[in-house]
Structures are given as structure tokens and as C-alpha cells.
């Protein structure tokens, strides 16, 4: 098992590395030039000034030299400084990451806590009106993009209840209730597709398991339906739900970029959104590496969980 985890960790590192290189190169391909963007306001910019700034930011070096420098620094935990204000990228991320992690965790929590009961209900009450309406909700939840849901919330809440997101973000230690209220809606918007996918997946996997022979054995022992579902059927249905969750984390992380901007939450998502606009390469790169690492790590945890749930998987890994 330990060996398996180490192997998976190394594999994850490789993925993060490849993502970094890819994003590094891709950023240089987007039209727009950080130097000109920064100097845009100054009247009568000379070519000399442009060259000087480029040299200052290290942008006059050949592309692969830049990449090499970046990677060498990154390995030592130095992601460089923001092009905009010279702030250390690691400091910026350190400030913003907890906010995004909280938002993401709330979204996942909502998705799981709502998705599991919905899935169980629709499996148990299969083909009832409840199941039919839950199906509708799920299909909608899976297909509606989360940013659209976020926009819808902001717009309608503003129109109907004259409510709008707080202008100033407050951390959970400053003002917990304001913080939770602020994050609740974007978390809802982010978690909806997770909820819907979990409900769908759990329903179909429960239905399959409930018809299996070993469930008949449990019933033949005289177990109650609660025990049949709660102890045996659920555990046997949960592995595909976990893999959905791993994928959904990617969705949620991606969604934070736009939703944080919509709701004015100063997390990583907003940071990356602003930095892309300013072509602030070091910040964008730093953020992407962190997003990638979080995604890889969570999927590693999900993978380890499979083994905890299923002794056959545990066995295959030793």
C-alpha cells in the first residue's frame, strides 16, 4: 500500500510538471504582451523603455532559458515575483489559497451531502414521481454550467430580494457568518453539478447492487432494509461515486476562476483571472501549478479510499 501511494505520488509529480511546462509555453502563445500592457498608459513610450522593462522581467531571454530558470527556481519553492507589483508569488498564493480551498470544500460538501440522499431516494423509490423529478433536477444540474448558475443567482437575488454579494470579503476568523453567507451561493453554484452527478451515479450503482446475489443473502439472514442498504448496498455502490467525485473536483477548481470573480471573493480564482488579463506570467503559472497539485492530490486520496473500501483492490495493490 505504501509503495502504491509513493508510486502514485511520483506519477502525480510528473503530471504537475507536464502541466507546468505546457502552461508556461501556452502563456507565451496568447497574443498580448505584458510589457506593452504595463506601459500602455504612459504616453510616448520608447522602444528603449520597452526593452529595458523586458530585460528587467527576464523576457528578453530565449524561451527555453526562461523555462529552465523558472523550473530551477520552482523546485526550490521560488515561483518568482508578480510582474505587476513585485510581490512574491508564493506569498500571494499563500494568502489566496485558503479562501479557494474553503470555497471548494463547501462546494464538495454540498454536492456530497445533497447528492447521496438524492441518489438513495431515487434508487429506493425507483420510477416514482420523486425519482422522475429528481432525474430532471439531476440532468439539469449536470448540464447547466456553474458560472451561468452563479450569474443567475446574483441577478435574480438582486432583482427579487435586492440582495447582492457583500462588497468586502471577510475571512472566517474575522466574521464567520458574513464569510459563510458570502461563500454559500458560489459554493451552491459550484456544487450543483457534483450533487447531480453523484445522485445519478449512486442511483444506478445502487440499483445494480440491490439486485445482486449477496444482497439476497443479507435479506435471507433476516436483515432490515435499512441495514441492507445502509451497510451492504451503499458500501458496494460507493466506488464509482468516489471516482465521480475525483473528476468533479476538477470542475469545481476550474469553476472558482469565474465564480470568485462574479461574487467578489479574493481567492486563487480571482487572482488567476486578474493575472491572465495582465499577462502576469509568474502568478498565472504559480496558480496553475497549485491547482494541478490540489487536483492530483485529491485524486490520490480518492484512489487510496478505493482500497480502504474494497479489499479486492487493496489486495491487487500489494
Amino acid at each position, binding site marked *: 500500500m505504501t509503495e502504491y501511494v509513493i508510486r502514485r505520488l511520483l506519477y502525480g509529480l510528473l503530471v504537475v510538471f507536464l502541466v507546468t511546462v505546457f502552461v508556461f509555453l501556452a502563456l507565451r502563445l496568447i497574443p498580448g504582451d505584458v510589457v506593452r500592457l504595463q506601459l500602455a498608459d504612459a504616453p510616448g513610450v520608447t522602444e528603449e523603455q520597452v526593452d529595458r522593462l523586458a530585460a528587467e522581467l527576464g523576457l528578453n531571454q530565449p524561451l527555453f532559458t526562461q523555462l529552465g530558470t523558472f523550473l530551477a527556481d520552482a523546485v526550490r519553492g521560488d515561483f518568482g515575483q508578480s510582474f505587476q507589483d513585485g510581490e512574491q508569488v508564493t506569498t500571494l498564493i499563500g494568502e489566496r489559497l485558503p479562501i479557494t480551498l474553503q470555497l471548494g470544500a463547501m462546494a464538495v460538501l454540498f454536492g456530497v451531502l445533497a447528492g447521496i440522499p438524492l441518489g438513495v431516494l431515487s434508487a429506493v423509490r425507483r420510477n416514482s414521481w420523486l425519482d422522475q423529478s429528481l432525474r430532471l433536477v439531476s440532468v439539469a444540474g449536470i448540464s447547466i454550467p456553474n458560472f451561468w448558475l452563479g450569474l443567475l443567482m446574483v441577478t435574480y437575488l438582486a432583482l427579487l430580494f435586492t440582495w447582492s454579494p457583500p462588497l468586502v470579503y471577510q475571512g472566517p476568523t474575522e466574521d464567520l457568518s458574513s464569510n459563510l453567507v458570502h461563500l454559500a451561493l458560489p459554493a451552491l453554484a459550484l456544487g450543483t453539478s457534483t450533487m447531480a452527478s453523484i445522485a445519478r451515479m449512486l442511483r444506478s450503482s445502487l440499483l445494480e447492487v440491490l439486485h445482486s446475489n449477496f444482497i439476497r443473502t443479507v435479506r435471507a439472514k433476516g436483515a432490515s432494509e435499512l441495514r441492507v442498504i445502509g451497510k*451492504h448496498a451503499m458500501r458496494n455502490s460507493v466506488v464509482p461515486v468516489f471516482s465521480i467525485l475525483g473528476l468533479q473536483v476538477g470542475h469545481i477548481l476550474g469553476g472558482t476562476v469565474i465564480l470568485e470573480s462574479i461574487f467578489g471573493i479574493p481567492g486563487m480564482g480571482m487572482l488567476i483571472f486578474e493575472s491572465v488579463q495582465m499577462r502576469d506570467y509568474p502568478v498565472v503559472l504559480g496558480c496553475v501549478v497549485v491547482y494541478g497539485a490540489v487536483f492530483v492530490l485529491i485524486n490520490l486520496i480518492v484512489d487510496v479510499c478505493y482500497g480502504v473500501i474494497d*479489499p479486492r483492490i487493496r489486495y491487487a495493490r500489494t
Partner: protein
Amino acid sequence: MWPNAEHEQTVPLLRVADLRVEFDTARGTVEAVNDIGFEVSAEQTVAIVGESGSGKSVTALAVLQLLDGGRIANGQIVWDGQDLSAVDKSRMRGIRGEDIAMIFQDPMTSLDPLYSIGDQIVEAIRLHRKISKTEARDRAVELLGQVGIPDARTRLRAYPHELSGGQRQRVMIAIALACAPRLLIADEPTTALDVTIEAQVLELIRDLQRQYQMALVLVTHDMGVVAEMADWVVVCYAGQVVEQGPAGKLLTDPQHPYTEALLTAIPTPETDKSQPLGAIGGAVPALHEMPPGCRFQPRCRHAWQDCTQPPPVVRLDGGRSSRCWLRAPAPTESRRAEPEQELA
């Protein structure tokens, strides 16, 4: 209603009468069991035989109300004087495992893959007995020993995937015996196993039946097994009992052409197990295309014109009965003489 002279005086443990079971399928409602009835008294072994699709498993499952999607459309299942179709769910749960236990056709998939066999045996015990986990574990070790699994205490921690098919069926038997039930229903407990293992498992079931003083309903394809184990035999065909009687008499002097055909088709060890009873020409009719009249008539060597009418259940001596026109009281000798003609 099936008379059963041998046990007329005693109240049977289990009485199944006029059972009809229906399933709703995409092609409409089908009748998996049309008319099945038999009795089981204490410590008796009743064999239910018949080809694949004759409704044996459905009948067995109906007794415990474990039909997945099926419903009992008619008939009674009386356990110890109590009609099970009328009891509520919690009473039924109290009977399952405690009074009537069941082992199934496919041991490979009948155990929960995610729990150790110890957990699964302990669960079976503690569902009905208010005892501590440690006591239940000790009982589980005892049970594993009784079903012939060596090194029982360490094996408790094994998961089903670590066991062979024969061992899994032994674990299933241990689970079934957990609460010392009065009736064990074994639905083809050995079809999925090798021949050598098959003999051992049957032997085990027979020993434990004696030890636990249980009645046994043994569902099987195999007339050889019937001859060895059964007191009473119920022969099913296409959802009906076609003949039943005491094993000794039924096997030596069958009163229904189907039983006769089954007996000439007793499989030897060389017989291909995937095609049981291949010696009878033709196949069991599909549920949605049952022939009118006698259901066996299209395959029967003795079929004649009367067979297009549903045959009566004819009562014979010794509590035997046969669902066949040949046994009907009316004179039949002349008809019997030229059986094949009507069929062409």
C-alpha cells in the same frame, strides 16, 4: 391441494399450496410458477427436481418472500400454522435466518465482497441473537469448524475473494446454520462446484441436517442426488408439480412420463453439466408460449388427444399424485396402445 397420506396425522412444518408467482416483464406479466404445492415435515428431506426454468428457484424464494420483482399471485405458504403471505415485514424478517435459512445456487456471488466472512457470519448470528460480538465470534469459529473450514479462527478474517467456490458454499452453509433454523432450503447448492467438491458439500449438508435436526428442501437437477438424499420428491415441470411421492416409490415406479424421462436421463460423472438432462428431446416451453392443456405434451412420448386439455391431478396410493391423463380413472388402455399417432 396435494394430499400427503404419510404425514396426515402430523401438522407439517411448511405447506405450500396452489402457489402461483408472477413477474412483470417488458413483455407483460409472466407466470413463473403456475401451480406448485407440497409439504415438508420436521426433519424430512424433500427434493424438488425439474429441468432449468421449471420454477424451482422461484418457489424456494417465494417461501422466504425474497422474490426480486415477483409477486405471489395465488396460493398459501403456511409455516408452522402461520400463513406467511399474511404476516408483516418484520415478522417475515424474524423468520428468515432464524426459522428458515437458505443457501443459493451461486456461491461465488452470494457473499458480500467487502466484508470478511467472520463479519458476515457474526451478522447472521447477531440479527437474531442478543449476544456480544465476542460470543458471536466464538460461535462463528464453531460454525466454520462444523462446515469443515480448517484453521477457523484465522479464516474469520478472510474475504470472499480469498476463498474457493467450495469454501464459499461452506461459509454460506455456516451462515445458514448460524441460528440453528428448523428448515434449510438449499437451492442447487452444488451446481457451481466440481464433482468431487459436490459430493463433499452434499455429505456435509446431510450430516449437519442430522446434527441440527433440520428439515431440508433440496432443489436439484440431479436424480442421483435425489436417490441418495430425499425422503419425498416433488417433480416440477414448467411451473407445475407434475408428480410427487415418497422417494423410494417414485424413483422405482414413476407415475408421470416426465419423471420417467428424467430417470432415464440420470447424469453420470461424464455427463456435460452445462446441459442437464439432455436426454429429453425438446425444451421447456417459454413462459409466454405455454401449450394449452398438458404442458409436457409437446415432448411426451405418450401424448394423445386428451392431452390438449389440462390434465387433472390424480391422487394415487401412499400420498402420491400425478398430473397426467394416463393416470386418470377413465379407461385408458386402448388409447395407450397407439400413443404416437395423435401427435403427427
